[in-house]
């Protein structure tokens, strides 16, 4: 049994990391372009972790995660833009809650509609849904049509580095809350039900899990977090456009999940940081970014199907684990 303290340890780490990054920002050790990138990383981490809930833990493939990102961005963006009577901090919270509710509702309704589809069919239907949402926003009044929604008040205000610190703090706080919720969900009874459905839906049904409901709720929860990520996007970029939420975004997030390891939250986080930061570091390779994504997807699948690689991975994992343990013991 883990003690209460041990269970809170990740939270302590999260706060420590926040402190370190903040220090780097205040002292301007972290250059401006990297400071600017931090909120994007937080946003994408929420996207990747929530998609992992569907792909890694539920075992269904969604190619329309960007749809809920778009819904969140538009709902949040419109609230931030039009409800100017409310002070900004409160407006952010209203926007996040509203976007979460709408994204959850749409996600649940959509999956209820397509609950009989699995595997390849679900992938296609989610892809179609993503494109449908992106296209349909254009004719909804107040969204700015094809030109997009502009002049959204952003979190980042004031001088450098204060404005990026503000943007990062908001994004980081929201991200930690999202990860915290998802990790706890997975460790709970519901999380075990989700994984049971993934491993064998019929067996899961036979022990009393309502498979259909489990899939709908899991999918909707993932949609909810994608919606929250959308609000962060809107509040950081000042403008949202239907073109920001195309198929490529869904694929990009899928690459993060697959590279990090399906069903591994920590992996998703690390992969996201690498994939968002890498194009900025290797500017020359930026044009090959999407090509690299494609190769990464194929390579990961081939490697994981190769028994020699799988056993190699396990050996390395065990070695690292043993080293880590001995380190801990040495410290104690």
């Amino acid at each position, binding site marked *: 049994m883990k003690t209460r303290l041990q269970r809170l340890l990740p939270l302590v780490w999260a706060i420590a990391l926040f402190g370190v990054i903040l220090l780097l920002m205040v002292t301007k050790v972290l250059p401006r372009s990297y400071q600017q990138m931090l909120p994007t990383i937080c946003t994408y981490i929420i996207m990747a972790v929530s998609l992992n809930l569907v792909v890694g833990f539920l075992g269904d493939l969604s190619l329309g995660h960007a749809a809920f990102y778009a819904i969140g961005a538009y709902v949040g963006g419109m609230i931030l833009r039009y409800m100017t009577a409310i002070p900004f901090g409160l407006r952010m919270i209203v926007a996040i809650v509203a976007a979460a509710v709408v994204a959850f509702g749409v996600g649940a309704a959509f999956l209820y509609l397509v609950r009989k589809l699995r595997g390849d069919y679900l992938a296609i*239907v989610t892809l179609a849904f993503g494109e449908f949402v992106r296209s349909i926003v254009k004719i909804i009044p107040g969204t700015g049509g094809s030109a997009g929604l502009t002049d959204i008040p952003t979190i980042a205000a004031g001088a450098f580095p204060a404005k990026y610190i503000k943007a990062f703090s908001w994004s980081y706080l929201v991200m930690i809350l999202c990860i915290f919720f998802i990790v706890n969900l997975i460790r709970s009874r519901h999380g075990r039900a989700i994984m049971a459905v993934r491993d064998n839906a019929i067996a899961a049904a036979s022990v009393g899990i309502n498979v259909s409901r489990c899939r709908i709720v899991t999918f909707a929860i993932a949609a909810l977090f994608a919606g929250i990520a959308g609000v962060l996007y809107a509040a950081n970029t000042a403008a949202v456009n239907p073109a920001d939420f195309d198929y490529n975004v869904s694929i990009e997030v899928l690459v993060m999940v697959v590279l990090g390891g399906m069903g591994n939250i920590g992996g998703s986080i690390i992969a996201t940081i690498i994939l968002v930061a890498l194009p900025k570091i290797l500017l020359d390779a930026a044009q090959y970014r999407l090509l690299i994504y494609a190769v990464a997807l*194929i390579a990961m699948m081939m490697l994981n199907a190769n028994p020699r690689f799988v056993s190699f991975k396990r050996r390395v994992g065990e070695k690292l684990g043993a080293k880590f343990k001995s380190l801990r013991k040495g410290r104690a």
Partner: protein
Amino acid sequence: MQTFISTLIDGLSLGSLYALVALGYSMVYGIAKMLNFAHGDVIMIGIYTLFVTLGAMGTSPLMLALSALIMIAFCALLGFTIEKLAYKPLRTASPLSVLITAIGVSYLLQNIALLVFGSRQQKVPTYFSLGSIYIGSVQIELLSLLILAVTVLIMILLALFISKTKLGSAMLAVSEDKGAAQLMGINVNATISLTFVIGSALAGVGALLYAAKMPWVGPYTGSVFGIKAFAAAVFGGIGSIPGAMIGGVLIGIIEAMMNVFLPDALSNASDGFAYLVLIIMLVLKPSGLLGRKQIEKV
């Protein structure tokens, strides 16, 4: 009324194009039990091949025939290579891994095209200028009739191939039960390769007809077209040749009608409605009009 009939015929020819591509999806799905996401992108590569060869050699009938042959052969080779390199190593992997690999291959082809040709839409030289005929006061494009005729011809040939030849029976057997087919002395790997080659060659024919009708090509031309064709295959019933025709024609007609009759206020989102139709089709009939019901066993 005249617009209605000419739109109907337009939709019919567009639909038969969908049907042709749907066949490729349907055959592969029936045999390899996987959604070949890259199928649409093979069409895209095919159109780019035409763009290059026709641009280099001109559009005289001889050169046209030569470039069409080169392009179809190239598509078939591409399909064969994709299967050998990407899908074959995953024969025993989980369906999710296979699906993600297929998406990866599709994404790879799109981005290769993006790097080589750029994101701008390129114009393929015109090579079929057939004009149109009038029946009464209704204008009918001859190209539409040609596309329809070619599709129907190919479907009949394919149906004959599957029912009359040994290779065709082998394909049926593999789609029924891989293990049993192997025990009967059928080379399963070769049969699956053959299916990919035929499917991709059909995609090549599709590319030839597509570019005659809509001569613009960009990196994403194929994937959008392919997704709709897959929905057509599912709606008509996976593994059924007439089903693919019904599904394809239905989508083609709905799309053509929407392009003409959708009110201006909504036309901004006409893509969205096309996808909505697709979602509805998949939700309504996931087992297909002419398909067999799949029974899930433990």
